[in-house]
């Protein structure tokens, strides 16, 4: 309880710092979490990325104050939600009277999963995101209601699952049966949507490191998701972030969980292959 209020104070201080100016962070800062886990936040771009030599985590673009919040779990406001997800993990729910733990034992059983997501699901014959796997278990194995894509329980659970892969390199498969979906996502990435006619690439490939108004543009990577945003003081799903960026081009967005956003997620995830999985990260 005490911990929680402390965290709230820390994040409002960070908000203040944010409003006061764009304190540019040290270009070469290293992300070492809790003084022990060194994260890869800059590395050589994967071979399939044609227009960039180096990929960088969104963390490297944030102010020193925001960066610091991710360097210690006591300061990371996203960790409260991970704690909540641990409770949910162990909670019996649905007609089968099972919890996640009944079948999966501890959350550590999810180690490595986040680095491969989203991935081809052979049985379903399509690419599935973490949310889809979770809901499949809830609906078909627990006899419980599905969670909404952005529901608190869902986003928190994806944070708990991501945490098990913290520091492991993103390694999303783009070939084999997933390739067609990946191609679809790639095409979307370069499509200039909306009345402002802007593609993801216009901002996150052609202009990363530039300011767009007060925002320091990153490469729009998703290795840090779900991300705790100081702006809305909660964990945010990947698709919620996509939705915001598409909306800001004065376009009709796609829905969370839509085939389009699943394809886009696969493509964007693959652009981070080689960066560490960071979720839950802290962003502004």
């Amino acid at each position, binding site marked *: 309880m005490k911990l929680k209020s402390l965290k709230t104070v820390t994040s409002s201080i960070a908000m203040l710092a944010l409003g006061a100016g764009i304190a540019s962070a040290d270009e070469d800062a290293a992300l070492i979490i809790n003084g022990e886990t060194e994260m890869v936040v800059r590395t050589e771009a994967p071979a399939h990325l044609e227009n960039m030599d180096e990929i960088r985590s969104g963390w490297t673009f944030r102010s020193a104050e925001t960066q610091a919040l991710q360097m210690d779990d006591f300061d990371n406001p996203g960790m409260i939600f991970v704690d909540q997800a641990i409770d949910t993990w162990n909670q019996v729910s649905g007609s089968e009277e099972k919890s996640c733990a009944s079948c999966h034992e501890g959350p550590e059983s999810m180690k490595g999963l986040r680095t491969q997501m989203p991935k081809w699901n052979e049985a379903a014959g399509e690419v599935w995101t973490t949310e889809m796997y979770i809901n499949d278990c809830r609906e078909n194995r627990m006899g419980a209601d599905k969670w909404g894509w952005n529901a608190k329980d869902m986003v928190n659970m994806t944070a708990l699952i991501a945490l098990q892969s913290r520091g492991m390199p993103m390694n999303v498969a783009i070939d084999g049966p997933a390739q067609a979906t990946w191609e679809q996502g790639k095409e979307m990435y370069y499509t200039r949507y909306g009345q402002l006619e802007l593609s993801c690439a*216009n901002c996150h490939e052609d202009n990363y490191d530039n300011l767009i108004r007060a925002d320091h543009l990153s490469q729009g990577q998703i290795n840090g998701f779900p991300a705790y945003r100081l702006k809305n003081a909660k964990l945010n799903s990947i698709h919620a972030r996509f939705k915001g960026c598409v909306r800001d081009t004065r*376009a*009709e967005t796609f829905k969370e969980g839509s085939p389009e956003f699943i394809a886009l997620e696969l493509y964007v995830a693959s652009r981070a292959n080689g960066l560490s999985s960071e979720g839950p990260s802290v962003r502004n």
Partner: protein
Amino acid sequence: MKRITLSATCLMASVGLVSAAEVAPENVEYDEYGAVAVSLSGTAGDAAAGRVVVSTKSQGNCVSCHAISELAEEVPFHGEVGPPLDGVADRWGEAEIRGIVANAKITYDGTIMPSFYKTTGYIRPGDAYTGKAATTDTLPPLLTSQQIEDVVAYLMTLKEE
């Protein structure tokens, strides 16, 4: 007699409102370099009004991509996606600037700069920033003809030489 004069005046007034001299977005004539010689509104631009359009988020929001030193004190956070507009009137004439503001994609093929005086040809056009689908086939242009003229008038004041 009196009556006839009255309706004639009414007619004149309504014609005036539509403004015979306004050029609709689909009728703008760009030359081969993307310049537009004729005023879009038929009314001279007001530089002071243009200064507001350039720096207001819900209007031109040009400063989200362009820095303008002259505005820096009043309007914080200028972007750096496009070149600074200081001295732009030394680099371009009025017709070129009008063309760039109306539809920069003709001057600069494939530029990231939005087309401010255009109503069709979009992929998944939305209803402003709501994220919902646009409700009409043609969208209102991002700026009106008069706003464009005002912005052009303002940019013409940005001289360094």
